[in-house]
């Protein structure tokens, strides 16, 4: 196992180098640059002299080779450079947003797991009954409804309902507060996007749980467990569920990794200052320095998540051994 983990960690190096090359050169194919957006994008007069100074300051006039060395070299020197838009260190820009994105990803995952596991199990156990149909309709709706739309509906619903009931509209706070400073304020802001994204996420996991459970429930060892006279709860929880969880864990882990950097629209809808919103802003501003490091962060999160999932497999199914 130890050897396997080391080998996987070493394999991450070519993966990250490949990703770095890809993101660096693909970004440079985009027309336009950050200085023009920044100085000319307002419609006010922008002198070419100022644009040239800006390009020089940001190193955009350097050769691609020099720019790539500066970008990739940052991973060895620990200096990831500065955002081309704000001039702030990239590490600081990411750090500020990371805690919110991580908390939201955890909360959404919790919402998804709390909904998906019971519903997936009940749906499988009660296959082809009205309960199963209801759960399937619920989960198909979850896949079909975009979470940003659900987010908008949640905000409008809260405004309309609170206005009707209390005479004044209420909406979630639009400024992040740390759960350690103000847990209620933090929950008041993040529970709604967690529900909106958790619902879609749960829909995928519910369907996966259901199909995995259906497969496992037809296995011989489940039949044997029932023949032994075990009560149904034990058969389901101890014998079937644990084995059915393998694909579910994969789905949950991949979704979790996606949530950390991928909530681009939901973060905008709820005005959450997370990594997804930062991603959109940095691409919109042609902030290559920030965008390429954000992409690398997401790549790293996915690679690490896959590794954790593989290790979890071994824990969930003792028959799996890595050598």
């Amino acid at each position, binding site marked *: 196992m130890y050897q396997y983990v080391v080998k996987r960690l070493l394999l991450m190096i070519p993966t990250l180098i490949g990703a770095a090359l890809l993101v660096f050169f693909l970004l440079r194919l985009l027309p*336009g640059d950050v200085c023009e*957006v920044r*100085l*000319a994008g307002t419609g006010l007069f*922008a002198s070419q002299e100022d644009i040239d100074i800006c390009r020089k300051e940001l190193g955009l006039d350097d050769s691609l080779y020099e720019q790539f060395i500066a970008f990739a070299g940052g991973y060895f020197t620990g200096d990831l450079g500065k955002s081309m838009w704000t001039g702030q260190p990239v590490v600081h820009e990411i750090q500020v947003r990371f805690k919110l994105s991580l908390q939201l990803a955890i909360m959404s995952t919790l919402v998804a797991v709390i909904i998906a596991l019971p519903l997936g199990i009940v749906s499988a156990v009660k296959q082809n009954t009205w309960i199963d149909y209801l759960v399937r309709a619920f989960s198909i709706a979850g896949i079909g409804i975009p979470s940003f739309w659900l987010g908008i509906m949640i905000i409008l619903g809260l405004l309309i309902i609170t206005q009707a009931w209390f005479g004044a509209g209420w909406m979630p706070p*639009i400024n992040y507060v740390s759960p350690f400073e103000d847990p209620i304020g933090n929950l008041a802001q993040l529970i709604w996007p967690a529900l909106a994204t958790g619902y879609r996420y749960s829909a995928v996991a519910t369907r996966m749980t259901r199909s995995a459970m259906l497969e496992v429930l037809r296995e011989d060892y489940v039949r044997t467990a029932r023949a032994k006279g075990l009560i149904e709860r034990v058969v389901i929880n101890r014998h079937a569920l644990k084995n059915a969880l393998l694909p579910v864990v994969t789905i949950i882990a991949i979704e979790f990794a996606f949530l950390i950097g991928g909530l681009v629209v939901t973060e*905008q809808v709820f005005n959450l200052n997370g990594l997804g919103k930062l991603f959109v802003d940095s691409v919109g501003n042609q902030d290559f320095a920030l965008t390429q490091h954000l992409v690398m962060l997401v790549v790293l999160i996915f690679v690490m998540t896959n590794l954790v999932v593989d290790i979890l497999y071994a824990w969930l199914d003792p028959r799996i051994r890595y050598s």
Partner: protein
Amino acid sequence: MKRYIRAFRAKTVASLLLGGAVGIGFCAQTATAETAQLGGTLDFVVAGEAPSKDGHRETTYAIVHPYAPFYSLLIRVNPDNPQSSDFVCDLCVGGVPEPTNGGKTFTFRIKEGVKFHDGTPLTARDVKATYDRIVFPPEGVPSARKAFFNMVDSVEAPDDTTVVFNLKFASGAFLPALATPFNWIYSKKDLDEHGYDWHRDNVNGSGPFKFVQHQPGAFVEGVRNDDYHHAGQPHLDGFKAIIAKKMSVRIQAIRGNRAAIEFRGFPPKARDDLVNALGDKLRVQESDWNCVLLFTSNHARKPFDDPRVRRALTLAVDRWGGSKYLSRIAIVKTVGGVVFPGHPLAASEEELVQLAGYGRDIEASRAEARRLLEEAGATDLTIDYNNRDVDQPYKVVGTWLIDQWAKVGVKAEQHVRPTPQFYAALRKSHEFDVSIDFNCQSVINPIADVTKFLGSSGNNYGQYDDQVLEEIYGKLARAPTEDEQRALMRQYEKRALDEMAHMGISLWWYKINPHRSYVKGWNIAPSHYLNQQLDNVWIDKSLM
């Protein structure tokens, strides 16, 4: 100069009284002789994040809204009447001085006892250091408004309370340039000790509020400056400028009282929704906006090198009809020429209708357009049309223009591009036949603002060189009286929009600011850059 300001003031006040009736109609509260209440924090939303904290190098309103309250200006647009060009002193004493030396010397007396937030006294030497940085920046130091001051020869500070601006020639554009809301007065000590980059990340002003913190991507926070140099102000304890890029968030934030106001402007539909939802808890202020949406023909591409084709494009556009219908869905409204509507230098309606594309008989205009296209051999014309991927007003008006051109048989293939790619096509690759373009300015300064139409201007993308237009402008920039300026402006307008039709004007923007009615003291300006120091803003707690 004084006559010019007075005339403009009288005309704009009159037009405000008449034209502003719509806005006043929405007002739940009137701003008559109310006593400002002290205290409270103003939360407002801003649609963008400033690239830095340095007003001298940036051009976006996203820096003005959160950071202008930390600074003072030498002179500013009157915060109690920002619709006028009624410039008043901020750091200077008394009124804005009359020029001497044939309009070439302006001498300002600087207030005594003013302090920067770090406790350093503010003197005339700080004002000089600031304007030296803006007007004569050292090589390699950006200054976004350096070109506004091409008439300035030198700035002197003979003592701690006197600043003298010596001009190369008398210019009506000087005072408006001086009142530009980006010209924040920096401390000479900061510039000398920390250099010209220090203000990118640091704030040390003498404005009504002191900087507390900036959370990247989230908000900027300020707290009252008890040593502020305008007695009795500011009224607020502080403010928080919350960054919210999605318009729906900003609208709902006002509805849900997470923010009291957004200073840039909303489209009519958002105003109507908020009015319906909030009733008398909302006040709406509306104004003509010193931004105009244009379409620029690329003269380097055939057949747009032919003035007949460009004239046909402008003749096809029904501006009067568009004003009526588009103003219901987009942030545009007023029909105008090259000068901000209502300004003394702007064309009257009688003068406007003489220009190509401004006639009241649109069918006659379009018949003429078809004739010109036929004469130019461009009857089967398809335009490669560059537009910006921003709804208001670009995509809305841009799509309307396609329909207008279709009425004279011109087809358009619209390429809607995100802002960076839009500008890359506009400024670098020039891959367009016709592009949406715009001219957004802060202080109404027609003589400077109309440079947009000059081929030599840094923000003109038509790729043309019109020496006749340049000569007219040269005379206009130096014309000493308003009558001469006005006459030359008509020549300039006729040449740019009609004879050569270098660019076409669609409509002038229209600013709509719905805000919580408990926000008092803030008066809408004709620009989203103006009147943002917030020193006269207060919160009426009885309405919260």
